[in-house]
């Protein structure tokens, strides 16, 4: 039975940039031979994360400042994602050899764990069909690693592979802020922003929308159990959830 570290960063007071640094440090630790890890975290406040190579000018910096949103950059790819009303997970593991180490296989493995966790909340999620990014907002663009309920995205994930290790992190939407990504990104005109807002709203769903338990401790605990049971692992935890 493999042993993983369980890192409980729920409610930890840390900036968004520090959150990303924590994930990268874990990736480096695992690449250097450290135990795999699952880190669960929440955010100090609304935080907009950009993909690794997403252009800075996708962001409406003035809007972010006005709404008190920290802007950070993820080590993973993809598009902008608003955090703060979500539970974020980071799974870090050595990349297995052979077919088990392909990007698709790893997404499949971790999707199974996430779906098992969501099932404990009474949510029947499925893996979305892959389609490329269609705009600057992450959740408006369906990707192969999405977990959806019906046609709407509940959990988006992204991977980075470095030095034989893999970091996959992602976000389970619990609720919504009074604003969304489209209020924080730059668009050529109001019509384009309105179209993006409509697309985002129609393609996403939260646990609250579904009437499922959406409080952070319950969601986090469900994910912990989903990972443990699906990956048949044992936790090494210093701070029990």
């Amino acid at each position: 039975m493999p042993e993983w570290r369980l890192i409980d960063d729920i409610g930890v007071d840390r900036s968004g940039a520090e959150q990303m640094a924590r994930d990268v440090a874990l990736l480096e630790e695992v690449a250097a031979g450290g135990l795999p890890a699952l880190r669960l975290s929440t955010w100090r406040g609304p935080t907009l994360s950009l993909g690794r190579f997403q252009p800075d000018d996708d962001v409406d910096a003035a809007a972010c400042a006005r709404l008190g949103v920290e802007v950070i950059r993820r080590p993973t790819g993809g598009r902008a994602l608003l955090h703060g009303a979500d539970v974020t997970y980071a799974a870090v593991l050595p990349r297995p050899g052979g077919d088990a180490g392909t990007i698709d296989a790893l997404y499949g493995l971790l999707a199974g764990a996430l779906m098992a966790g969501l099932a404990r909340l009474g949510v029947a999620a499925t893996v979305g069909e892959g389609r490329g990014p269609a705009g600057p907002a992450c959740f408006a663009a369906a990707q192969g690693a999405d977990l959806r309920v019906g046609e709407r995205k509940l959990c988006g994930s992204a991977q980075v592979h470095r030095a034989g290790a893999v970091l996959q992190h992602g976000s389970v939407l619990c609720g919504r802020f009074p604003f969304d990504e489209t209020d924080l990104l730059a668009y050529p005109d109001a019509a384009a922003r309105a179209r993006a807002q409509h697309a985002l709203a129609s393609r996403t769903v939260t646990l609250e929308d579904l009437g499922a338990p959406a409080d952070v401790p319950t969601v986090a605990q469900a994910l912990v159990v989903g990972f443990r049971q699906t990956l048949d692992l044992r936790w090494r935890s210093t701070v029990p959830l």
Partner: protein
Amino acid sequence: MEFPEDVRYTREHEWVRADGARATVGITDYAQDALGDVVYVQLPDVGANVVAAASCCEVESTKSVSEVYTPVTGTIVEVNEALTETPELVNQAPYGDGWIFVVELADTAEVDTLLDAGAYRAFVEES
């Protein structure tokens, strides 16, 4: 899946085509297929000294961000600027217009130590 005979390969799924002291590098057909649609290529700096097996740039696809390792030691003398506007060339022509960078080889014999097409094909089929 293509395994051209005129290039050498690494187990990290890069290819090298040597022409004298210049070696053109890209990622293999297997790698581009595994990555999915490539949306961005972070090109290395021209003039950078690179060491075989070290990471020298990253490729973002709709699925992941993955490192590209240089298969050979030397100096980067050219990068494929076309990938800035059309990163999908990596998918469309991994052994052709989707090349990523050119290394001025420190040791031309280093290329011969890499996998040939048959050995790389066997590696991919076994994995």
